[in-house]
């Protein structure tokens, strides 16, 4: 689905003209963009949240040529899917949630080793 298809569907279902629906949808994403540019996070309950992550400079490699590339420090938006949407996206694909009722292990843990911090979300970055 593209943005214009989203606009059409919103127009159909709400009875708004396409022009008005377009203004609504554009305003939503523009205001989200402004928040992120200002460094603010966005939280949409049931959908997900966006945060801005700061990345330090690093030496990357062009995966095709193997050349070393200097990657400047940068800010990137990071999206974390909300609980409801995560379950809905996954829902019809695995037979049921019985295998994994909670996303994180919550069993009583004995001595508690020190590597809990490594449970970062996947910080995927483009190298090029």
């Amino acid at each position, binding site marked *: 689905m593209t943005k214009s298809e989203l606009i059409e569907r919103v127009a159909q279902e709400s009875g708004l003209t396409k022009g008005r629906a377009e203004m609504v949808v554009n305003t939503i994403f523009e205001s989200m963009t402004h928040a992120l540019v200002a460094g603010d996070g966005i939280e949409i309950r049931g959908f997900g949240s966006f945060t801005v992550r700061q990345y330090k400079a690093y030496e990357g490699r062009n995966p095709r040529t193997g050349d070393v590339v200097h990657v400047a420090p940068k800010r990137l938006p990071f*999206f974390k899917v909300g609980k409801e949407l995560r379950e809905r996206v996954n829902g019809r694909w695995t037979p049921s949630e019985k295998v994994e009722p909670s996303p994180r292990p919550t069993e009583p843990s004995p001595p508690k080793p020190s590597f809990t911090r490594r449970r970062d979300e996947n910080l995927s970055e483009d190298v090029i």
Partner: protein
Amino acid sequence: MTKADIVDKVCDRVGGFSKKEAADLVDQVFDTMKQVLETGEKIKISGFGNFVVRDKKPRPGRNPQTGDEITIEARRVLTFKPSNVLKVALNSGE
């Protein structure tokens, strides 16, 4: 920023809506997106980014608290790939 802030923006910028109407519309936009993503279809918002549903294969993993080996089940996850426009906007400030 929360949904309420977005609703305020819609009221200010578009005009002609009550708060309630604007709130219903914003809900409708996100509900529509959820319905589409639930079917596995991706959503491309030009200037903002793409929401993509990806199938993950099962893989061996570990319970980080106990160190026990477990199998991470096959699942379907949602990823967001920011558009270049958004990435540039985030880095063109200072």
